[in-house]
């Protein structure tokens, strides 16, 4: 039996004993006090009558004096018992309500409900530690894909916020310190349905502890952690198969790609977007002189990448005593025109506002825009609440710390085919990528495309699997519309992976084989149509041959018989 039940019982001991005693004394009194029956004879209540009377009297139902009118003695006793029983009930009900509303008891009850819910989860889920900007973005993206999450956070308000969301697959949440092994275990880190643990707390130390606990409690479990310093990232990566994500390095990598190969950057950005994210405009940063304001962790990561890309960088930082500041750096905040002019903003190609203060960052970029309207502007956004103002300001690139990590983790959690495809695509030339970009624009509207994997396997696509066993299925069959095969669904097969090797943008007449894996790219609703074809024999048969196949056994028999007859006649 759950411990919560015992606790309730223990807290209710005294009220229950009080009630039993009041009832016992009242009943005993009525049995002993003599009364009169309708003939005026002395009559004593039996226990049966006394219990009946006390029951309806104590619950204030009050049927009256049954079975005979009471004697004065009985009435006197009734007066006492009325007050005693009413007080007894008020006390007991009050005590019960008090226990039920006790904050400690409420927390215990919530914890208990959470544990049960986690134990009853029978679908693959992710365990997410920390529900800040990153956590909430990630939970929503996973929920859009139908994957439930279990969330732990220290802050009760955030958990309440989580429980009030109306996602399709409801996330579970608990207030707790995720770096404690007990809490992690309760949240299902050892559950066979847990696909991975994602450590997103504000503290690197806590993330490290979560990684360690996960490694010990469930070694094969996948772990992704946020790490804001290179040392901590190396530490987390040093054991197990962990993946640590540093938001600054990740963003710097993207900026370097955007500088070196803008089309490749756009392709990678579109294909690793979150669900329902709007398609971003392609950016073309120039390779002239760049001004970098703020030389903290973010500034340093960008400085290294820009240097690596062969770009001359002029650093502005407020701290004169900064030891690792490159030579020739300007000392100042960068928010005033003088400093920016001294750094050469008027002739520069790009400017990066990378201080940890949103006000300063906005001010730097606004001033820089006044001085040189053609600048390529990169902004660092620290607070999520300022998102609106950053969006309106129209900077070419905005680094939102939470979003960078959420996007990266989401991309890592999805099918590994996306990574395979991007690795291959990055080696292609610019013309190839541009052609692919225009094809993608053709199949999507204003949201990023959905990428999913079509697996030719018995479990995932039974109809397709059986058809492939017989042979004769080509990729083009899947691309026909299930309602009218003359029409085509607007989807692009990006990659076909099979044992012999991968085919980049496979041709439509490619014959499909068992165990093939195809990465499809299309708008969201198209996935349902293609799944239908993969799972339904009749639909797939129609797509392949154009014949409407009857589903029922009788009709199939009749058709076979008629075919046999017409064959015999011929």
């Amino acid at each position, binding site marked *: 039996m759950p411990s919560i039940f015992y606790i309730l019982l223990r807290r209710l001991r005294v009220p229950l004993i009080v009630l039993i005693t009041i009832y016992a004394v009242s009943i005993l009194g009525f049995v002993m006090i003599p009364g009169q029956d309708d003939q005026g004879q002395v009559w004593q209540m*039996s226990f*049966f009558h006394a219990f009946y009377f006390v029951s309806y009297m104590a619950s204030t139902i009050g049927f009256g004096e049954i079975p005979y009118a009471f004697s004065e003695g009985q009435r006197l006793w009734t007066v006492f018992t009325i007050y005693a029983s009413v007080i007894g009930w008020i006390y007991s009900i009050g005590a019960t309500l008090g226990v039920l509303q006790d904050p400690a008891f409420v927390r215990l009850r919530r914890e208990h409900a959470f544990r049960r819910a986690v134990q009853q989860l029978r679908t693959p889920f992710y365990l997410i530690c920390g529900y800040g900007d990153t956590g909430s973005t990630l939970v929503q993206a996973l929920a859009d894909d139908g994957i439930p999450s279990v969330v732990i956070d220290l802050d009760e308000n955030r958990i309440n916020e989580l429980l009030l969301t109306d996602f399709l697959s409801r996330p579970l949440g608990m207030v707790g310190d995720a770096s404690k092994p007990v809490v992690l275990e309760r949240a299902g880190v050892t559950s066979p349905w847990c696909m991975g643990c994602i450590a997103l707390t504000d503290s690197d130390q806590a993330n490290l502890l979560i990684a360690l606990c996960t490694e010990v409690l469930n070694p094969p479990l996948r772990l992704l952690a946020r790490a804001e310093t290179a040392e901590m990232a190396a530490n987390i990566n040093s054991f197990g198969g962990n993946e640590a994500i540093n938001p600054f390095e990740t963003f710097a990598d993207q900026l370097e790609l955007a500088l070196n190969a803008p089309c490749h950057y756009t392709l990678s950005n579109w294909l690793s977007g979150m669900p329902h994210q709007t398609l971003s405009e392609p950016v073309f940063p120039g390779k002239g002189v760049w001004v970098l304001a703020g030389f903290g962790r973010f500034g340093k990561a960008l400085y290294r990448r820009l240097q690596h890309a062969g770009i001359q960088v002029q650093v502005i930082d407020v701290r004169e005593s900064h030891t690792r500041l490159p030579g020739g750096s300007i000392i100042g905040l960068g928010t005033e025109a003088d400093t920016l002019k001294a750094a050469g903003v008027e002739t520069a190609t790009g400017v990066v506002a990378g201080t940890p203060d949103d006000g300063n960052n906005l001010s730097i970029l606004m001033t820089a825009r006044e001085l040189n309207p053609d600048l390529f502007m990169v902004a660092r956004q620290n607070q999520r609440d300022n998102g609106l103002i950053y969006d309106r300001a129209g900077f070419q690139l905005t680094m939102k710390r939470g979003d960078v990590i959420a996007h990266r983790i989401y991309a890592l959690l999805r099918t590994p085919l996306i990574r395979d495809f991007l690795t291959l695509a990055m080696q292609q030339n610019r013309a190839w990528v541009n052609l692919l970009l225009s094809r993608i624009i053709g199949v999507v509207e204003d949201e990023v495309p959905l990428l999913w994997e079509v697996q030719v396997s018995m479990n995932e696509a039974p109809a397709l699997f059986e058809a492939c066993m017989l042979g004769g299925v080509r990729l083009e069959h899947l691309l026909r519309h299930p309602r009218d095969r003359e029409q085509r669904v607007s989807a692009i097969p990006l990659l076909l992976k099979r044992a012999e090797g991968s085919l980049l943008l496979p041709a439509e007449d490619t014959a499909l084989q068992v165990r093939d894996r195809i990465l499809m790219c299309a708008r969201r609703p198209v996935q349902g149509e293609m799944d239908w074809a993969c799972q339904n024999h009749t639909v797939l048969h129609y797509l392949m041959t154009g014949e409407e196949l009857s589903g029922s056994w009788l009709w199939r028999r009749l058709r076979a018989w008629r075919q046999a007859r017409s064959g015999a006649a011929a």
Partner: protein
Amino acid sequence: MNLEKVVFGFFIVLALTLNFGFFVGDIDNPDHHHAFELFAALVVSLIASVLKFGDRTHLGAIFLATSLVADLQLVVAAIFWGYASHVSPDGLTSAAMVSIVSMSGGALLANITSVVLLVAETITVRR
């Protein structure tokens, strides 16, 4: 000395003694079995059950179980007595009395188990 232990022991032993007091006598003779004694045994047994609530040990669980068995038997005996003397057309016959007393006999066994457990627990605690 622990007052909680005194109260606990008191109610468990009292439940047994009252139950025994009701049980002794000719099994079919209503004069040998008084309704007050059954009432007292039932009330004390209920209080003893409530006192056993919330103990999460294995022994605590067995205590509660024996007590619930005693309650059940005594409640059935009391209901049957009420039925026999007020509802049944035959009234309180000796056959009905036999049923009532044998029900309380079952409760007696449960109460004995309870006391044996209490003694066993007391012996293991050398304080």
